C-alpha cells in the first residue's frame, strides 16, 4: 500500500480527527436513522464463536456505539451503530475459558478489512482478470438459480460441485442436505493442514474419527511427536491453558515435556528436551520406546486395540530395539532408553502426535504407533491422558461415530473432482460453488487446480475476499463476516463435556452482503420441489432453532430453553462426559476391522543426491495456513521464533548455510522437482542440518493489499504425494535443493541481534 501518499495528508500539528468524527467532513455526510438504540461510550458484550480454526473457541465481542460509513439505497452516509471493538475469550466457554490466541483476536480485522467484497459481483473481464461489476442480490441469486435449474432440467444435477473449507455444525448439515436434495454429490471440503490421517488412526484405534482432547493439566510427562499443540494444532488455546497448569499449576509438581521434531516449533521451544529425530521416523521412535517399555517390563503390557494393529507388537517389536532405531531415527540408543524409562516412571505420561509426522506416506502407521504407545502408558481415556469428546445430541449433522468423510484425506477428495474435470468425465462439474476455500493457493502444483477450475463453465463463490481461487469465479455472492452472521459450532476436542456453541450476529452487516446459509436457503426455495421441501426454513437461525428444538426434546427441556440459554451464554453443554469424572464415552466397539499396520520408511519426492534437503512447510503461528495473511495485525506481529514480519523466509541450519555460502538475509532459491521459489534465508540453530523449513501463509498472488504479492508460497513447490490409505496430502514428503541468488529483504523485529552474535565470535 502506498504509505507515502497517506503521509502527504499529514499536516503541521497532526491531530484533527476525532473518534466520533466531530467537525470533520464526514459529519457533513447525510446520516441514516440508526437501527438500534445504544448508550454512547458504554461497552456491551455479545457472545460469538471463533471460526478461524477448527478449535471452535467461544468469543465475547466488545460492542460500542460508533459512526460507520455505509451505503443505503445508493446514498453514502453515516449511521450510528454498534461496532465490534475487540474480540476476547468467552470466560464461561469450556474450550477457551476467557482466553484467546493471537489469531482469534485478529479476527476482528476480517470484518473491517478494506479489501472485503461489499456487494455481489459479476465477472466482466477474462477469468482471473479480477474485473467485476456490481449487481443486485436479486440478479445474483437469479443467475445462480437459473444455472442450477438448467442443470436440473438436463438432469445433470450430479455435475454440481460444492467446494468449501471444512464446515462445522448446522452449516455442514445445510450444505449436505441441499446438495443431497438437489441430487449433487456431497460437498468437498479442503484445507492444507488436514487431520484425516490422525482421525483415521483414531477411528481404527479407538472408534472415533476425531481429534483427541489432551488433559495436559493433569499430565506429568508429555511426549509430543511433531504436534504444535501450543501454536496451531488441534485446540491450541485449550492446550495452552492446560500447559500452564502442567508447568506451574500444581505446587511442587512440574511436568516434563519432550518434543520430537526436526525443526523447533513454537511449541518445541518450550520443551525441556528437544529430540530432532529424522523426518518421518517419529513413529519408529515411538515403537522403539514401546519396545524398551515392553522389554524392560516397565509397564504391564495390556495390548489395546491400537497395539494389536501394529505388526510385531506381540513379539515385542524386535525390529525397533534402540540400537536399530538409532540408525532409523538419528536418536542415540541411550537417549531412547532414557526417554522410555522416564515416560514409564512418570504417570500419567501421554504421547501426542500431529503435524508433519502424519504428512508422510507412513503417517497412518506413525499415528497408530503413538496411539499404541499411549495404550501401553495407560493414558487413553484416563486423567492426564487423551480423551474423545462426546457430541451433543443433534438430530442431523455432527453425529458420532464421525461421518466417514471426516477421516477421508481432503486432498484425495479434491483431487478426484479435479481429475473428473481435467479428464472431461461424464458428470464432471458444470457448476462449481466455492465457499471460503482457496485450493489454487493451498494445493500443490501437480494438482493443476487452476487449470481444472478454469475449465468449469460456471463458478460461483460465497467468499468475502477475492483470492486466487474466487478471482476465477463468474459470480461472487459475498458472505457476511463471521461477526455479522449466525454462528454455531460443535467443538471436536479441547474439552471433556459435549458442547454446542451458538451465537447470533454481534453487529449489523456493514455492507450489502448476505450470509451464505441464507442465500443457500433462498436458492433452495427458488429451485422449489424436493430441495425446497427438505429445507423448510426461511433463514438459517430458524434452522438452528429447529436443531436445538431437537436437542431440547432429547434433553427433555422446555421448548426454547436451551436455545435461549445457548444464545445468552454463547454455548450449551449436555453434560455428557464431564471434566469431573475425567472419562469420555470411549469404546472401541465402533472400530472397523483392519489388518496389521507395518511401519515403513518415509518416502520422499526427489533423489537425495540431487535434492539433499528435506523440505518442511509449517503452519505459521500468525498466518495459520495462509487464510489469515490478509490481516495487517497478523502480518506485523513478529513470528515467535524468527521475529520476522511482513514476509516469508527459509529457515536453515547455520552449518548447512555456511557450506552453501548463505548468510542471514540472503535471497535463496529453493528448488524441488515441481517448482522453485525465492525467499530470504534465516539462519536458525533450531533446525536439523538436513532440513530446510518454510512458513506457510505468504506468497498470495491475489488476496487483498496486505497479503497480495508478498513472500513466497511453499505449497507451490510441494509434490502431490499422499498418505496411501486416506489420500491425505503428504505435505512433508518433498526434497529440495537450495542456493544463494542474491541479497534478500528480511524484516526482523529483533533486527539488531545478529550483529552482536557475530561480535561475540569476534572476541
Amino acid at each position, binding site marked *: 500500500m502506498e504509505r507515502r501518499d497517506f*503521509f502527504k495528508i*499529514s*499536516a*503541521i*500539528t*497532526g491531530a484533527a480527527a476525532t473518534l466520533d468524527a466531530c467537525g470533520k467532513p464526514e459529519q457533513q455526510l447525510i446520516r441514516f436513522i440508526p437501527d438500534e438504540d445504544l448508550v454512547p461510550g458504554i461497552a456491551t458484550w455479545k457472545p460469538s464463536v471463533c471460526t478461524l480454526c477448527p478449535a471452535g473457541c467461544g468469543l465475547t465481542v466488545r460492542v460500542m456505539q460508533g459512526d460507520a460509513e455505509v451505503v443505503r439505497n445508493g446514498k453514502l452516509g453515516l449511521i450510528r451503530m454498534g461496532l465490534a471493538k475487540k474480540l476476547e475469550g468467552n470466560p464461561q466457554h469450556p474450550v477457551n475459558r476467557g482466553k484467546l490466541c493471537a489469531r482469534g483476536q485478529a479476527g476482528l480485522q476480517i470484518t473491517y478489512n478494506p479489501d472485503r467484497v461489499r456487494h455481489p459481483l459479476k465477472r466482466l473481464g477474462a477469468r482471473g482478470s479480477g474485473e467485476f461489476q456490481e449487481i443486485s442480490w436479486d440478479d445474483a441469486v437469479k443467475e445462480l438459480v437459473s444455472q442450477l435449474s438448467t442443470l436440473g432440467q438436463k438432469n445433470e444435477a450430479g455435475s454440481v460441485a460444492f467446494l468449501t473449507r471444512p464446515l462445522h455444525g448446522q452449516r455442514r448439515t445445510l450444505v449436505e442436505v441441499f446438495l443431497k436434495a438437489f441430487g449433487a454429490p456431497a460437498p468437498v471440503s479442503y484445507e492444507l493442514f488436514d487431520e484425516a490421517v490422525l482421525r483415521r488412526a483414531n477411528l481404527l484405534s479407538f472408534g472415533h474419527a476425531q481429534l483427541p482432547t489432551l488433559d495436559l493439566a493433569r499430565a506429568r510427562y508429555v511426549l509430543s511427536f511433531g504436534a504444535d499443540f501450543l501454536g496451531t494444532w488441534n485446540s491450541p488455546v485449550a492446550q495452552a491453558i492446560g500447559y500452564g497448569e502442567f508447568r506451574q499449576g500444581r505446587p511442587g509438581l512440574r511436568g516434563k515435556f519432550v518434543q520430537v521434531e526436526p525443526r523447533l516449533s513454537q511449541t518445541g521451544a518450550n520443551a525441556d528436551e528437544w529430540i530432532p529425530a529424522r523426518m518421518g521416523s517419529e513413529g519408529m521412535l515411538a515403537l522403539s520406546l514401546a519396545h524398551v517399555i515392553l522389554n524392560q517390563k516397565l509397564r504391564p503390557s495390556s495390548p489395546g486395540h491400537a497395539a494389536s494393529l501394529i505388526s510385531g507388537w506381540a513379539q515385542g517389536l524386535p525390529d525397533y530395539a534402540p540400537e536399530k532405531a538409532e540408525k532409523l531415527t538419528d536418536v542415540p540408543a541411550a537417549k531412547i532408553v532414557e526417554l522410555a524409562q522416564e515416560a514409564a516412571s512418570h504417570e500419567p505420561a501421554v504421547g501426542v502426535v500431529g503435524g508433519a509426522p502424519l504428512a508422510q506416506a507412513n503417517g497412518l502407521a506413525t499415528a497408530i504407533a503413538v496411539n499404541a504407545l499411549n495404550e501401553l502408558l495407560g493414558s487413553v481415556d484416563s486423567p492426564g491422558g487423551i480423551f474423545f469428546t462426546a457430541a451433543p445430541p443433534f438430530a442431523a449433522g455432527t453425529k458420532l461415530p464421525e461421518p466417514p468423510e471426516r477421516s477421508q484425506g481432503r486432498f484425495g477428495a479434491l483431487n478426484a473432482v479435479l481429475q473428473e474435470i481435467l479428464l472431461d468425465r461424464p458428470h464432471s462439474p458444470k457448476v462449481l460453488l466455492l465457499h471460503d476455500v482457496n485450493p489454487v493457493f493451498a494445493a500443490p502444483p501437480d494438482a493443476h487446480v487452476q487449470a481444472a477450475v478454469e475449465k468449469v463453465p460456471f463458478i460461483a463463490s460465497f467468499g468475502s475476499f477475492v483470492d486466487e481461487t474466487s478471482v476465477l469465479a463468474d459470480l461472487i455472492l459475498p458472505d457476511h463476516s463471521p461477526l455479522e452472521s449466525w454462528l454455531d459450532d460443535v467443538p471436536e476436542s479441547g474439552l471433556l463435556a459435549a458442547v454446542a456453541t451458538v451465537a447470533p450476529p454481534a453487529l449489523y452487516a456493514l455492507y450489502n452482503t448476505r450470509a451464505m446459509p441464507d442465500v443457500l436457503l433462498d436458492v433452495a426455495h427458488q429451485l422449489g420441489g424436493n430441495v425446497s421441501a427438505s429445507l423448510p426454513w426461511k433463514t438459517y437461525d430458524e434452522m438452528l432453532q429447529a436443531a436445538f428444538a431437537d436437542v431440547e426434546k432429547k434433553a427433555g427441556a422446555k421448548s426454547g430453553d436451551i436455545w435461549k440459554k445457548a444464545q445468552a451464554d454463547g454455548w450449551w453443554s449436555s453434560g455428557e462426559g464431564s471434566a469431573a469424572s475425567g472419562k469420555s464415552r470411549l469404546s472401541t466397539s465402533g472400530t472397523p476391522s483392519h489388518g496389521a499396520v507395518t511401519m515403513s520408511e518415509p518416502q520422499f519426492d526427489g533423489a537425495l543426491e540431487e535434492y539433499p534437503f528435506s523440505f518442511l512447510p509449517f503452519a505459521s503461528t500468525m498466518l495459520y495456513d495462509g487464510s489469515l495473511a490478509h490481516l495487517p495485525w497478523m502480518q506485523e506481529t513478529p513470528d515467535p521464533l524468527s521475529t520476522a514480519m511482513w514476509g516469508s523466509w527459509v529457515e536453515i541450519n547455520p552449518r548447512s548455510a555456511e557450506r552453501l555460502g548463505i548468510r542471514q538475509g540472503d535471497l535463496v532459491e529453493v528448488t524441488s522437482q515441481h517448482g522453485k521459489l525465492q525467499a530470504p534465508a534465516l539462519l536458525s540453530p533450531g533446525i536439523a542440518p538436513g532440513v530446510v523449513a518454510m512458513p506457510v501463509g505468504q506468497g498470495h498472488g491475489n488476496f487483498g493489499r496486505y497479503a497480495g504479492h508478498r513472500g513466497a508460497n511453499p505449497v507451490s513447490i510441494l509434490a502431490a504425494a499422499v498418505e496411501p490409505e486416506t489420500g491425505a496430502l503428504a505435505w512433508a514428503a518433498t526434497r529440495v535443493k537450495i542456493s544463494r541468488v542474491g541479497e534478500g529483504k528480511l524484516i526482523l523485529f*529483533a*533486527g*539488531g*541481534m545478529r*550483529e*552482536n552474535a*557475530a*561480535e561475540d565470535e*569476534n*572476541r
Partner: protein
Amino acid sequence: MKSVDQINHDLLRPVVHTSGRFWLVFVILGSVVLAAVGAFAYQFWEGIGVWGINRPVFWAFAITNFVFWIGISHAGTLISAILRLANATWRRPVTRCAEVITVFALMIGGMFPIIHLGRPWLFFWLVPYPSERQIWPQFRSPLAWDFFAIGTYLTGSIIFLLLPIIPDWALVRDKTSGWRHGLYRVVSLGWRGTPRQWHRLETAMHIMAVAIIPVAVSVHTIVSWDFAMAPVPMWHSTIFGPYFVAGAIFSGIAGLILAMAFLRKLLHLEEYLLPIHFDNLGKLLLMMSLLWFYFVFAERLTTWYGNEPAEMAVFWVTQRGSFAPLFWTMVFCNFLIPFPLLAISRIRRTITGVVIASSTVVVGMWLERFLIIVPSLSHKYLPYTYGHYRPTWVEITILVGTFAAIGLLYMLFAKFVPIISIWELKAGGHQKPAARAAEAVSARTSPMGAKELELRPES
C-alpha cells in the same frame, strides 16, 4: 609598525567596499542554507520520520550537530577571555574572530534541540512561564538545564563580543558617510572615546572575561550531562563533563584556526594574521589533542577493564563492529594526523600544516560526537532491542547547511564589523590600555589620534 592610516585602510576595506567575489560566495552559501531550511520545512510537515532515526536509535545527527556546534562555540569566548586575562599581546588580531565564532556556533547549535523535537512547534514549553495549564517545565531534566545554560552563554558571549566592537563602530561611523554613517551612528551608541567611556569599557570587558569562563565550562558540562545522566551503556560516566569540555575547546580552536585562515585569504589580512598566531594556536591545539587522546584512552580503558556486559557490547561494536571504521577514522583525525603535524615545529610554523591539522580535527570531533551517541543507543541492555542507523538526505542536508550557515553569518558579520579589533591592534602597537586611557583624558584623543577630530563633520 604599520601606520594608523594603513591599519584603518586595510581593516575597514571589507566593511566599506564589497567585491563581486563576495556576492558569488554569498549566493553559493545562501542557497545551501536555503536547501537546509527546505529540508527542515519538509521534516516539519511530514514528521520526523523523514530522518533515519528509529527505535532504539532515537537520537542521531541532530543531537550530534547540537553537541558539535556547542563545542565549536567554545573557541572563541574561552580562548579570547583567557588570552585577555593572561594579557597575551599576540591575541589582539585573533580575539574578535574567535568571539564571533562563539556567537554564531551557539546560535546554530542552540537551534538543534528545537529542530530535533517530534513537535517543534511546542518548543516554548521548555520556557518557564505561568500558563492556564498551571504546569511548569520539569527542572530535573537536563534538557531544561540546557535551555538555561545555552541561554546564559549566548547572552554572555554576545555582550562579550559587542563591547569591544563599539569603538570600532564609532571609527567606521567617522570614516564613512551616507546610510552607512547613519547605521553605525546608531549602533556605536554615541561612543566618543571619553576617558570615562574607555574606563567603563575596560572594566566591563574584564568582568565579562572573568564571568564568561565558568559559564563556558558549565555549558558544555551540562551538555555532556544530557548523556551522562541517562543509564545508557557508555553514557553513564563521570568523565563526561571534563571530556566534553576538553573536546569542545579542542574542536573550538580547530574551528578558529580554519576561520582565521579563510579570513586571511579572503580579506587579504596577511599582514595582520601572522604565522605566529597560527603557530601559537597550533600549540594550543596540540595540547588539546593530547588531552583529548588521554580522555578517550581513560574512558575506553576503564570500560574495557570493568568488563560490564552492556558496556562491552558498545565497546566492541565501536572497536571491531559496524562502527569500527568510523571510530578509527576519528582516532586518525583527532590524534594520529594532527599530532605529528603540530608536534614538529617546522610544520606547525607553516600555516598550511596547522590548517590541515585543524580540518581533520573538525571532522574527527564531529565523528566523536556521533560515536558517543549512536553506538550506545543502538546497543542498549537487551540484545533483543539492538538496532541500526542510516542517515537520510534530510539529515545530511541539514548538517551541510549548518556549515554553510556559519560561513554565511561570518561573511555578513565581516561585512558590517571590522573583523579585527582595530583599536586593540593599535593599542597593541602603542602602550597599555590603562595609560592610554589616562593620556586620552588630556588630549581627548582616542588611540586613533587627532585625525579622527578633523574627520568629524560636527567639529
